[in-house]
């Protein structure tokens, strides 16, 4: 039973002369500690968890929220501690962050940049959140990241896979743990070459928006580099539900591989259509026809049922990973909620821990100090092996999982099997290739 009654404003109230009026410009108000927005009081600190609660990604959002709640529990020293024990940095002691009890507020992004910003602004302006995290799409991540930069608080991105988040739209106050399109392409290509050969002709169906573009680009570049040919790339509307008219021409196009640059509901529907049109069973150019899904979401792949079996893709994390961190997290999540966590839950949990850890190591909630502590921070034990938070673009570099839909699942959550763990070195790229400027850290003055 957590109490939420002390917010920034609650803390402020104590200092204000009762009955008297006190007008302060914002920047003075924040000056309890060191001149940054929403400096927390002495007893508690408020984090903002902004996840989709309505709309098509609501279930993914709900899973993120569970992870956040779990992280808060662990930070406050409740529960079994989860990954705190496996985390390589030992700064966190289960007594909140810098001795302050962690409290949180939640909001609904609706998977719309506008709504997400409104919700994040209310967390910052009304609830005094010092950090905002969460989200389930790149559009939302980019929008909220820019807001946090402007307001002068830290943004710890949730599930966002587009190159843009830490590429052309990167911001000094924003950090991403999740992997991106480029890494998916780089990790997938060698596995695909091993399994399907280097003489393949690929047909891309791409969701017609920013994430689709960067994913198509990444997969094309890396597969073409090893000898594949791209026959065609067709853009599909984001709102499409029946993909028959896009899938039907594929078989006669001369292609022998179909790449579905789709996520979530789009992926479920296009994959279902592709299987219905017999692509799985078909032969082309004397080879078995293959389908590839660059980014898997286990949670939503369930909607495609049997159709995912044997299909390659990549994922940020999977609960069946055997390392100590993953096992600890899966155990504590599974015990509390009765089912294993998704990759979205994992990244949100890890981001919360990383933030708390950075604050503790920096000894301050000042976003600039926190950013400094996160930049070029190397850690281990959070489920993805040795990981680097690169300072130049605030992107994490870690191993990438190449997975395949499991043929004979043991239970209803056992949809994906891990084919290969691509080492971080193989997916690392030069920070400058996507353009964009990080700018300077903004403490909110």
């Amino acid at each position, binding site marked *: 039973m957590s109490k939420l009654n002390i917010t920034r404003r609650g803390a402020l109230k104590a200092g204000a002369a009762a009955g008297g009026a006190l007008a302060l410009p914002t920047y003075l108000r924040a000056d309890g500690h060191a001149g940054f927005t929403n400096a927390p009081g002495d007893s508690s600190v408020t984090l903002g968890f902004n996840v989709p609660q309505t709309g098509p990604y609501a279930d993914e959002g709900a899973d993120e929220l569970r992870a956040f709640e779990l992280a808060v529990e662990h930070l406050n020293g409740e529960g079994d501690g989860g990954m705190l024990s496996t985390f390589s940095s030992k700064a966190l002691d289960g007594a909140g962050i810098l001795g302050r009890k962690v409290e949180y507020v939640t909001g609904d992004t609706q998977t719309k940049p506008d709504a997400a910003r409104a919700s994040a602004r209310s967390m910052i302006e009304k609830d005094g959140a010092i950090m905002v995290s969460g989200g389930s799409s790149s559009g939302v991540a980019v929008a909220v990241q820019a807001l946090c930069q402007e307001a002068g608080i830290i943004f710890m991105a949730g599930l966002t896979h587009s190159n843009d988040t830490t590429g052309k739209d990167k911001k000094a106050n924003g950090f991403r743990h999740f992997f991106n399109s480029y890494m998916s392409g780089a990790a997938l290509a060698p596995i695909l070459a091993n399994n399907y050969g280097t003489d393949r002709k690929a047909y891309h169906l791409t969701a017609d928006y920013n994430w689709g573009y960067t994913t198509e680009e990444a997969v094309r570049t890396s597969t073409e580099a090893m000898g594949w040919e791209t026959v*065609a790339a067709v853009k599909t*509307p984001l709102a499409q539900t029946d993909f028959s008219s896009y899938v039907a021409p594929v078989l006669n*196009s001369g292609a022998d591989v179909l790449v579905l640059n789709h996520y979530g509901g789009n992926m479920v529907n296009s994959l279902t259509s592709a299987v219905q049109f017999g692509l799985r069973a078909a032969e082309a150019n004397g080879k078995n026809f293959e389908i590839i899904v660059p980014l898997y979401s286990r949670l939503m792949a369930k909607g*495609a049922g049997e159709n995912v079996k044997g299909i390659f893709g990549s994922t940020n994390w999977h609960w069946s990973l055997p390392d100590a961190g993953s096992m600890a997290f899966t155990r504590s999540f599974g015990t509390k909620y009765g089912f*294993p966590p998704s990759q979205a839950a994992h990244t949100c949990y890890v981001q919360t821990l990383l933030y708390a850890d950075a604050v503790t190591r920096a000894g301050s909630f000042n976003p600039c100090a926190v950013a400094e502590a996160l930049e070029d921070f190397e850690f281990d034990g959070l489920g993805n092996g040795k990981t680097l938070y690169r300072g130049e673009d605030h992107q994490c570099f870690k191993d990438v999982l190449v997975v395949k839909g499991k043929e004979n699942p043991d239970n209803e959550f056992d949809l994906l099997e891990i084919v290969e763990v691509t080492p971080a070195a193989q997916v690392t790229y030069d920070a400058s290739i996507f353009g964009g400027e990080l700018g300077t850290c903004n403490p909110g003055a």
Partner: protein
Amino acid sequence: MDQIILQILNGLDKGSAYALIALGLTLIFGTLGVVNFAHGALFMLGAFCTVTLSRILGLSKEVIDETRTDFLGNPLKVDVPYIYDWFGESAGAAIIDWAVPLSILFSIPIMIAIGVAMERGLIKHFYKRPHADQILVTFGLAIVLQEIIKYYFGANQIPAPAPDAFIGSFDFGAAIGMDPGAIIYPYWRIVYFFFAMILIAAVFAFLQFTTFGMVVRAGMADRETVGLLGINIDRRFTIMFGIAAAVAGLAGVMYTPIVSPNYHMGMDFLVISFVVVVVGGMGSLPGAVLAGFVLGILESFASMREVIEFLPGINQVVIYLAAIIILLTRPRGLLGRKGVMED
């Protein structure tokens, strides 16, 4: 050539769904003069009748299987449907496999009941109210219905596959004397098309050849006069609403293997179905069906690679573009009559 035939097939298939939803919407528009924003929700409820039935059929007891483990490493609890106990494993599995076709029988009474309840309980009181009020109340109802579904079934899509017998594709090319494999089309989509045709024919026959239908058609043409004849038009409208709900529901039931249902699918179809109805001509049932197929085929052609390369983005807007052109050149839609809903 094969591409064109393929896209015509796709168009007929998409068109079937549009036509079925628009048909029900037009029945309500035309007979009752009600702008029903909850019609998409009825389609969605139909689809969830299937989900519910397969859940009911799949009601299970737990059996501990010591040889396998769950994700936490504990012995796995395996669900064994009760239906296996009653009918034996193979017959039980076959019944579960046929959940979607069985849902047709399951959904008809449910959807009619929902439709009648909606009309009696809510819509009835809005016949004389402005269209604006009807929009607000039915939109509110649609939100409530879909949120209830979301509460019980979650937001993600739920697979509801067709029976194994219908998995796979029909070699259309070979059947019409082209190269084998040139045009293959999934069985279930062919089934959907024929199902839609039968349903549409049934509705038309019902309106054409029964006294009930005659009165309703007269009511669509001139509600006041029919009312003056002393015919209890209210009761007939209630039944009409039930039929419209059943048509939408059946469209949803049969659609589940094509696109796995989620709580939001009704809203996805809502706008498009209104466009179909208006393009077809307000109050014209043949118009709604025709417009459904025309727009379905147009949408399919616009999504061909060759077309998109020539006109980027055309696949996003083709339906709306077609609607604008048709409404500007044929003021009352394809088959509409003068004076219906023009104010």
